[in-house]
Structures are given as structure tokens and as C-alpha cells.
């Protein structure tokens, strides 16, 4: 009981677990509510999407998750119209990302293979990680 009380007094550890859970829930919800006009999300795309979310630092804001008509998973971090990051992930791990950093456009293509590619990580840090 004493350990449990001390665990309750550490809200940060709870927040991290909640973030991971919330992200996975958002992915499942997006897949299950995808338009029937969209190409179905493959199990490979779902798994890649899940691994990507797990690789996102727990301190990052949670993204909006949606499904593109081509069956790719989209993660989007939106702060303002001029500060936004959109990532499209396919079953092969092909990652298309586009961002505006204070209005400056950055975009590129990379491959996610368990680790967030450097180019993506750089813009992710600028858009998704809250500044102290």
C-alpha cells in the first residue's frame, strides 16, 4: 500500500502511460472509423503506425490520427496554421512528412524502421515537444 501511494504521487509516470495508451486508442479509433471510400488499412500499416507512435517521445503532445484514402496512416501535430507537422506512413514504413515551422515549409520522404528518421525527429521536436 505504501508503494502504491508513492506511485500515485508521481503523476509524470502516470502521464507517460496514459500518453501511450491514448495514442494507441486514437490509432485504433481512426482505423475502425475510416471511410469505406478509403483503401482498407493493412495490418502492416497498423503495426508500423503503432511502432511509430511508440517511438514518439512520451513528452510529445499526442497527434491527431486519421486514415488517408490510400490507406496510409496520418499523424498530425497542429499548434497553429503556421506551425504544424503532418506525417503519412505506409505499410512499408515509407514516411512522407511536411511541416510549417513559423511558416517556413519543410518536407521530405524517409523510411521508418523502428527509429524515427532524423529529418522527422528534428521537426517533431520543434512542433510536438512542449517548450518548458
Amino acid at each position: 500500500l505504501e508503494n502504491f501511494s508513492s506511485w500515485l504521487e508521481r503523476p509524470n509516470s502516470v502521464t507517460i502511460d496514459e500518453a501511450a495508451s491514448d495514442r494507441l486508442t486514437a490509432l485504433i479509433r481512426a482505423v475502425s472509423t475510416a471511410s469505406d471510400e478509403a483503401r482498407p488499412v493493412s495490418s502492416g500499416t497498423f503495426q508500423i503506425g503503432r511502432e511509430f507512435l511508440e517511438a514518439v517521445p512520451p513528452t510529445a503532445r499526442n497527434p491527431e490520427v486519421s486514415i488517408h484514402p490510400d490507406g496510409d496512416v496520418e499523424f498530425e501535430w497542429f499548434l497553429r496554421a503556421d506551425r504544424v507537422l503532418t506525417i503519412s506512413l505506409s505499410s512499408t514504413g515509407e514516411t512522407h512528412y511536411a511541416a510549417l515551422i513559423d511558416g517556413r515549409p519543410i518536407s521530405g520522404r524517409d523510411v521508418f524502421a523502428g527509429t524515427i528518421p532524423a529529418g522527422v525527429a528534428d521537426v517533431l521536436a520543434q512542433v510536438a515537444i512542449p517548450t518548458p
Partner: protein
Amino acid sequence: LFSRGTEFSVADDGQARLKAAGLIPFKYVELSVYRTVSLSESLIWKMGDVFVAALRKRPVVARAKFPASLITSRGLQVRPQEPPPRHADLLPWPTEKHAQLSIAQQIIESGATIELRPKEGTR
């Protein structure tokens, strides 16, 4: 004119936000739009019912709004493609999805907005 709902998001406070994915071409190499200058709101939604909803077999629930100048300033052209009346294609888009998303983000940042369809009886 949107019928899916994935092209935009709606916050808890009911505020809708146009997403970049709503402005890029899927399936085709061009993005389908309608020129709505001088049309009433009710006629625009009616066009959506007749020309979009009937084709997709699902109701039009929202529309993105932006002047043609936002498109042309990003290197795209508005090419009339009738019928249906007032229909046009936006092109040419880059082939890479990230480049398409980037253009869409810049169009949104420049002022493109989303309008949810008013519920029946509120118009």
C-alpha cells in the same frame, strides 16, 4: 466539397479545422473543385448534393473555401473542366506526397478555411 470527414477535424468546442490531407489529390493527379463566386450558400450546398453526394453516395458535410489566388501563388492552375457546371481541376501537383502535403499546408496557412454544412433548419 467533402463527404468523408477525414479532410478536416472538429475540436471539442465545435471548431472545425481544415487538414492538409483534405487538399491533396488522391486517386487522381488533379484535385476537383467548384468555382462558387457569386453563388448563394444554399446553391453551393445544392451543387454538392447533385454533383458530389450523388456520385459518392454519401452526403456532403463540409466544404473548403479559398480564393483562386491562393492556388496560383503556389504554382497550381485552375483548369475549368465542365460538365458539371463550374467544375474545375487544380493541377499540376508534384508526384511526391510530402510535396503535395506541403503545398496544402501553405494554402491553409494563407487563408483556406473549412465550413461545416449547417444542420437542416438552421439556414
